[in-house]
């Protein structure tokens, strides 16, 4: 087989392997694409980003973030516009009342949060967290001290568990960013 053929084979094979092999989220309200675009509208590409945290890093993050609800899957992308990184898109899942909420948030290169996007909400109890006004509370906050639940991020009476858990999740994502993502050049 000629080197060229191997190259073609490699190209096609690489393309196939690039596609996600397991469906992490059945995004019912927003597709991942739509969420990414909502978070960084000016980005032209989102590069999947791989994280491998050491045990030390994990405890440091939780130590910064505070108490956490059960989490589901985490995915991270780097948003790029014309070769310039804009920030990160972080997609996470937390338990609402009994079921997982899939949500995503953007953290800009300057550390500013975007509004939360809710991709999937699976139970009726606490569905109010999808209110635009509540999700917008996160925008432009930069520091964990600005993300106190009930003080900075108001709870939703009747959806207290869901709003508390998503807020705790966002705190964790910001702590993660501060610990391992802040320097744009860092990657495994």
């Amino acid at each position, binding site marked *: 087989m000629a080197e060229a053929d191997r190259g*073609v084979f490699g190209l096609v094979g*690489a393309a196939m392997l690039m596609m996600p092999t397991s469906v992490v989220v059945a995004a019912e309200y927003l597709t991942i694409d739509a969420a990414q675009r909502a978070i960084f509208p000016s980005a032209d590409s989102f590069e999947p980003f791989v994280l491998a945290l050491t045990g030390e890093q994990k405890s440091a993050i939780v130590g910064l973030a505070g*108490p956490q*609800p059960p989490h589901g899957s985490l995915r991270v992308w780097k948003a790029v516009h014309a070769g310039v990184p804009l920030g990160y898109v972080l997609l996470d899942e937390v338990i609402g009342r009994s079921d997982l909420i899939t949500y995503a948030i953007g953290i800009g290169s300057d550390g500013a949060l975007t509004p939360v996007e809710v991709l999937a909400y699976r*139970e009726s109890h606490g569905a*109010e967290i999808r209110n635009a006004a509540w999700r917008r509370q996160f925008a432009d906050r930069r520091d964990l001290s600005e993300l106190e639940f009930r003080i900075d991020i108001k709870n939703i009476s009747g959806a207290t568990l869901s709003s508390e858990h998503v807020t705790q999740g966002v705190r964790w994502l910001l702590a993660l960013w501060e610990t391992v993502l802040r320097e744009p050049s860092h990657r495994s």
Partner: protein
Amino acid sequence: MQRSTIRISSLLHAAVAIAVGAFAAPPAAAATQQELEAQLAALASEVSTLRSELARVSQEQQATNARAAVPVQVLGQTTDSATVAEAESGLDFFGYGQIDYSRPKDEPSDTTETVSRFVVGMTNEFDEKTRMVSELEVENTVSSADDPGEVEVEQLYIERTFDDRLFGKVGLFLIPSGLLNENHEPTRFYGVFRNRVETAIIPTTWREGGMLMQGTTEFGLRWDAGLTTGFDLSKWDPTSPEGKESPLGSIHQELALAKASDMSGIFALNYTGIPGVRLGASIFSGDAAQGQPGFDDNVVTLWEAHGTWTPGKFEFAALYANGHISNTSKVNLTFIGNPTLIPESFYGWYGQAAYDLFDWDGNSVRPFVRFERLNTASNYSDLSPGLTPENGPDQDIITGGFSFLFAQGVVLKADYQHFHGIGGSDLINFGMGYQF
């Protein structure tokens, strides 16, 4: 990833170009043997470079793909492996419970402690859009013919997610009325005991069977509309004081062989578009006569309005509820001579304030105070001079105490209650509760 692809294709192009170039040399040029050998050597070395580049790039490619294909579970394992198992099987459990101790200041011999409720909940996801929710409750610890407890199915429904913002429920579910009914777990309310307005006027925990649609809008409105079972006025016992304690509580059916010839409707609106504020109202109405002999056209209507506001560390709540039963004279005449006739109207309201006094690591100590006023028989329909019962007394209850919330789901509470209007001793209460 894309850089590597570009690399491969440019290499490929280069390789093809070289190959084509090699075979597409102009025939006129008389290449000497040495020139040909030199070109061949150059070709060979180019190919060798290409080969090693290709090998390196595809290795890199595969390594990256391998890592990208597996979703990174960073925190999943530290909390509970059950989460992973649940995601695969669809079955999940939840629960709450509370134990209360209550001591009447003037009657210490009536001090009681009990497992007020122990609730086990089970949900099952059949598929992404369909789930079952159930709750089984034991009240007062031991349930038997000789014991004071009760076991009941508190909820049992199938919920379907329809589209973007629409859910539907069919089965036995909580009525979206008031602040407490849908959020009645001990970590969700202040005070060892649930407030009297939402016990005696709105009969928390109020559940009915039927269908309910719930929708949310982008700007923060949530609406609920449903068709459900209602009350059964033939359960009214004029010889018992129960109707004076809670009119609707004494005639609720709890879907236990409920009479369903007359259904009721529920409509509720809740606005949470302003973060930290919730405003809402609901109305429930339906005939409670259920076709029973002697009862005719007795429509029970319960409407309420409520609001909460959490500025900074404060938390305020207020609620007003009003109930009405129509056409009670006819039935009341047949109850003459007994102590408890059916009221035409009853109402209650309360105002509550709480403050997040100490807050650390997700734990908090919150003192609160609440004032309630209710009247379980504010008006009786006219029977005849001397036969119409006197209106019930306004009951005023003032409660003050605090909650200590910790560990993301446990609460210890203490409070003091003073009653005015129906007598009864002041109460000193302690409670433990949890929710998960």
